[in-house]
């Protein structure tokens, strides 16, 4: 089977998202959660973690931040160092002893907990049971705010055009792009603008970006150009790996457009004067 060649003009290339049912919490909105901040947020975007805490607390939820947390293990896992990833995962698993939901500020780390920890511990029945229990109560922040908290956001900001970038694992493992979209649509003055090849990877891929810098660099250059061309005044993403990649590229190109974590954006847009002064 073959066709000669296509010379068609670029078209919108959105692939329909996979459907997964909305996940709620069995007993309704809980009073207490764990926050897993992720290592990239910890060191480079700590305000995103703090804003996630603020958003959760405003919903009347107490947040516990286990101080023993570090990394979900994904960098080693995706690089083929499975054993090393497993040991780091084991260290994280010790931290969530109580039966509370675990809210994660990144789709790809939440995806690691939910989709890949079961693979890491498939040969250890006792650990596997623990892992499955963790997977069941792991939520990406946007998913948690939307479906478990049923959050109602009241926009306090001026009209703004926003482009949303979703990480691939968030999109394809967690469906978080739909949750983030739904949250943004609650903000009356925020208009979400679409960009070309929205569903396409920004080129980060953890160690991919340093193992294959040329290919990754071409991908992020295209991504930043389409974000810029969308006319958005603000770029928002719920994944700090992508943000580090996209922002780093914006900066390198001297493009005055920096992506912000969804938690920070939502918190800043919805703060009342009273909250801001606290």
């Amino acid at each position, binding site marked *: *089977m*073959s*066709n*000669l*060649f*296509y*010379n*068609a003009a*670029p078209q*919108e*290339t959105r*692939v*329909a998202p*996979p*459907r997964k049912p909305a996940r709620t919490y069995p007993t309704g909105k809980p009073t207490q959660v764990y926050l897993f*901040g992720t290592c990239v947020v*910890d*060191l*480079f975007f*700590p*305000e995103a*973690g*703090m804003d996630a*805490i603020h958003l959760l607390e405003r919903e009347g939820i*107490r947040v*516990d*931040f286990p*101080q023993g*947390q*570090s990394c979900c293990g994904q960098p080693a*896992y*995706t690089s*083929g*160092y499975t054993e*090393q990833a497993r040991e*780091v995962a*084991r*260290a994280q698993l010790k931290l969530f002893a109580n039966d509370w939901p675990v809210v994660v500020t990144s789709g790809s780390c939440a995806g690691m907990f939910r989709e890949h920890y079961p693979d890491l511990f498939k040969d250890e029945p006792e650990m596997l049971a623990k892992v499955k229990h963790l997977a069941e109560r792991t939520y990406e922040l946007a998913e948690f705010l939307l479906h478990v908290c049923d959050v109602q956001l009241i926009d306090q900001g001026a009209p703004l055009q926003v482009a949303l970038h979703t990480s*691939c694992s968030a*999109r*394809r*493992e967690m469906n978080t792009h739909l949750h983030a979209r739904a949250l943004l649509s609650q903000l009356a003055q925020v208009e979400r603008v679409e960009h070309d090849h929205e569903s*396409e*990877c920004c080129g980060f*891929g*953890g160690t*991919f*970006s*340093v*193992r*294959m810098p040329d*290919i*990754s*660099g071409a991908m*992020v*250059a295209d991504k930043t150009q389409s974000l810029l061309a969308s006319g958005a005044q603000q770029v928002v993403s719920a994944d700090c790996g992508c943000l*580090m990649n996209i922002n*780093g*590229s914006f*900066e390198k190109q001297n493009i005055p457009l920096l992506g912000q974590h969804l938690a920070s954006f939502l918190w800043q847009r919805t703060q009342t004067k009273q909250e801001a002064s606290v």
Partner: protein
Amino acid sequence: MNSQRIHAVDVTARNLKANARLSLKDQQLRHNMRSAMDSLISKRIISMPDEDERENLRELGNKVRARALSELPDLLELLEANLIKQGIQVHWASSTDEANAIVLKIAQTRNAKQVIKGKSMVSEEMAMNEHLTEHGIEALESDMGEYIIQLDNEKPTHIIMPAIHKNAEQVGRLFEHRLALPYTNDVDSLIQSARGILREKFFHADIGISGVNFAVAETGTLLLVENEGNGRMSTTVPPVHIAVTGIEKVVANLQDTVPLLSLLTRSALGQGITTYVNMISAPRQPGELDGPEEVHLVLLDNGRSQAFADSELRQTLNCIRCGACMNHCPVYTRIGGQAYGTVYPGPIGKIISPHLLGLENTPDHPSASSLCGACGEVCPVKIPIPALLRRLREENVKSPQQAGQVMDGQGSRYSAKERLLWKGWQYFNSQPLLYKTGTFLATRLRALTPKNLGPWTQHHSAPKPAARSLHELAKAHLEKQS
């Protein structure tokens, strides 16, 4: 416009990174690939608009393929028995050398001078054209895309559309240069000119070669889909037809081909069905007016049984060669197929090539992916390509001496230094006190963050740690709350 030609350099699978660097600089290639892939992506989705139907069909496709693979040895035997009963000669080849020797022997027995080929990726895998040419037999590609790249002395860039990286202007120039035709960029005229040339060749060829899309065990049927008619011509006009296929293409019965065909043509080109669906089950019978006197099938292993032996890696063999994973791959779209240096490029190429060539010859293939998952999302038979890429990375960084070797070339990227680095990373992230000390220092010494971070800072500014880590901020905040 930079028009550096990728085929002018040493394009081998071992050079993936260097090949990619050259491709990335070729703005014409980048443009051609992007617009072609965008068009294919939208065609696929238009041809499968109902999401439920699409997902059910994919699920069915996966089940059919998985079942066929679970019975692979039995189905192959049944296929062989039925083909022989119907008068088709069956040959087994464990390597491409063996397969080439079989084809050459048939050709020499018939004293063949000219071979005309329909499209077959397995023949590319064998480098059959080169082999036949070396033995004085002309092998001409008759699929339009294959014909174009053969004229330009290139390798296919895509498994369905071998010349997809070229636009009409480039093909017009090529025909002007190689066929002495007046220049035109009108696609229909270009096709008509080439068809005229090829039509003559069909009538004079001694042997026709084709691939196989599905080999049906129960009925002994070789099923071949195509759009141009060259497949039917290659398999019916010359006096001998040789079909070549990988051993994984066998399915149990004709019913099984229905969902697979639908998935194949929709995923590949957005077509409900192709213009031609050929079903071959015997040579010309007494009293029949046309068809070849002899039909042969060459069943090629070439590393497939290595993939078959491992229950996870076996899923690689589910592939029905539609190319949808390539069309949706952001890496493939940017570097084109030739940069991979393998017959099968793109995501499927990255998981099958290490079995065909060994990891030692494809060391960078498993790593050349951001694991974005687009390939797995569109695969019509639900091959978990990202998971298999990750698995191959694991095999690739294992010590070459480590027991339980499942792949040729295990540990081709093994590095004691890198392993030590990850052990350090593991230790750092498993010891909370060490982690907190480390991040504390990184935040306090943020002014000293180097500006040059090697490969990262080629395309990014260096990230600077925040003034305080989330650990510290959260601790202070939560203490204040309580």
